[in-house]
């Protein structure tokens, strides 16, 4: 259980994290979602006691991180896969970590086995691919067999196979009853892995709720209809109790229909003899809807608006 309470972090006049409160419960994957620069990594560093909050507190099973005895056995974290000395072998990296928390060397071999790095354990970590570095980071997080795990953007830059492997390992860890917190700037990624979401923007909490609920709200399938007889169509749809929104696309009046199928809209239009210029299902609106939600909370906007997908990386 991670409890974040009124956490605030200021760097000079910039507020990176702003009165943030949320909790992460065991037995599920909790997604920590927000656009780049929203304060996810800063929050995670404060959870681990690496950065000092300006105000507020974080408790791990009721205690501040700094008061944990042998903390690697309580919380495992992968914040950055590149935090390894490039000239040190993977095994030596894990061995010094294990030693600090009085973990047996046997654990090092076990976690290397778990992540599939046994064969390259004695090679220098600097020569590892991103996928291998990520696996080493996960091995380090699992070293103390902790109840709580945190991963910061673990799938960034990975190939599909690597992404799938990370998703599976996170879900397995949660199904074992552990607390798993995973950050991402991609809602589509979180929709695949997380059961619950903590959504933040500009350091502020936007929403903590179930992923299904968030996705439903954010992306209720919409149908776009353009017609020269917009008024008649709207009346007809209203009569059927269908929700309609007005929009202007390319200077022509457009209806956005929510909560029905394109077939139904087409049939209603035909019955009324209404001419349609467009009848299309708006897919992939998940990211867009997410961006809309976090829009005011985005730190930097592209010049032509923020409606294109945010596919950048944090670094």
């Amino acid at each position, binding site marked *: 259980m991670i409890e974040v309470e009124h956490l605030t972090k200021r760097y000079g006049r910039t507020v990176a994290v702003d009165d943030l409160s949320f909790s992460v419960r065991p037995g599920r994957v909790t997604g920590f979602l927000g656009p780049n620069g929203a304060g996810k990594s800063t929050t995670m560093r404060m959870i*681990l006691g690496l950065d000092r909050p300006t105000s507020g507190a974080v408790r791990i099973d009721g205690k501040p991180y700094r008061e944990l005895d042998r*903390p690697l056995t309580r919380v495992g974290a992968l914040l950055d896969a590149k*935090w390894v000395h490039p000239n040190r072998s993977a095994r030596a990296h894990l061995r*010094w970590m294990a*030693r*600090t928390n*009085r973990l047996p060397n046997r654990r090092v071999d076990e976690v290397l086995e778990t992540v599939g790095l046994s064969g390259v354990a004695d090679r220098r970590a600097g020569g590892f691919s991103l996928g291998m570095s990520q696996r080493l980071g996960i091995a380090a997080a699992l070293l103390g067999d902790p109840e709580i795990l945190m991963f910061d953007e673990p799938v960034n830059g990975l190939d599909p196979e690597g992404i799938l492997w990370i998703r599976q390992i996170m879900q397995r860890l949660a199904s074992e009853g552990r607390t798993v917190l995973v950050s991402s700037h991609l809602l589509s990624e979180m929709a695949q892995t997380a059961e619950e979401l903590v959504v933040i923007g500009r350091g502020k909490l936007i929403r903590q709720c179930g992923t299904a609920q968030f996705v439903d709200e954010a992306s209720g399938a919409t149908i776009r209809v353009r017609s020269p007889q917009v008024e008649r169509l709207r009346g007809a749809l209203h009569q059927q109790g269908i929700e309609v929104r007005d929009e202007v696309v390319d200077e022509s009046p457009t209806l956005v229909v929510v909560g029905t199928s394109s077939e139904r809209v087409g049939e209603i239009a035909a019955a009324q003899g209404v001419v349609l210029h467009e009848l299309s299902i708006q897919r992939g609106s998940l990211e867009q809807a997410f961006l809309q939600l976090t829009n005011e909370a985005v730190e930097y906007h592209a010049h032509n608006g923020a409606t294109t997908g945010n596919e950048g990386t944090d670094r």
Partner: protein
Amino acid sequence: MSAVNLISAESIKLFSTRSPWWCNLLAMALPVGFATAAVLSWPTDLPISVTEVQLGYQFGMMLVLVMAALAVTTEYRFGTMRTTFQAVPGRTPVLLAKTVLVAGVAGLVGLVAALGSLGVASLLHPVSELGLGTAHELRAVLGVAPVFVFSAVIAVAVGLLVRQSAGALAILLVWPMLVEPLVSVIPTVGEPVQQWMPFMAADHFLRGASSMIADPVLSPAASLAYFGVVAVGLLAVALVVARRRDA
């Protein structure tokens, strides 16, 4: 979190990369090489003093400063300091463990370098009857070990404060090599101030009357104590800063 485990973890770190090995090997080889050269260029019928033989300690000290500073700054460079603080969130115990290890290794290196220099010199120059008979000889030879220990402590402290290799090494090489020897150039205050420069004090401890200090206030033994106090004081400041700062 027992001290033994933390020191053991730090020794895995120190000895699992190559550069500390090179630094330490060179820190032993250079003074011995210097002693060899000094003896070979000395007239064979004139006795050479132990101070002349041990002058190469300065090269060893430079390398020990580099080794100790890099033990800290590479951790900041590659982000492993964050992992370290994650594993030991109290920070001070693990930083002390690192200091103890690095300073201990530095002391051993100093001992080997000094005894090696003495050994080579007495083999090549039997006329001098070099040995460890007098207090002066004991200081000049065995004293290299504590000087290296405190030098390493200073380097760890500077590494913790500066957190990056280039800056830390610039300070650690320019300060003892250029700043301290040149302090005496300053009119009137220069000479009295110079003997309170830490590395000058260390040099006074090792070389006594042959050191650069014109009119010493402290005895050689007190000079070593002073050097130690400066090192430990600097480390204390660095530990407080490292504890407070965002990693």
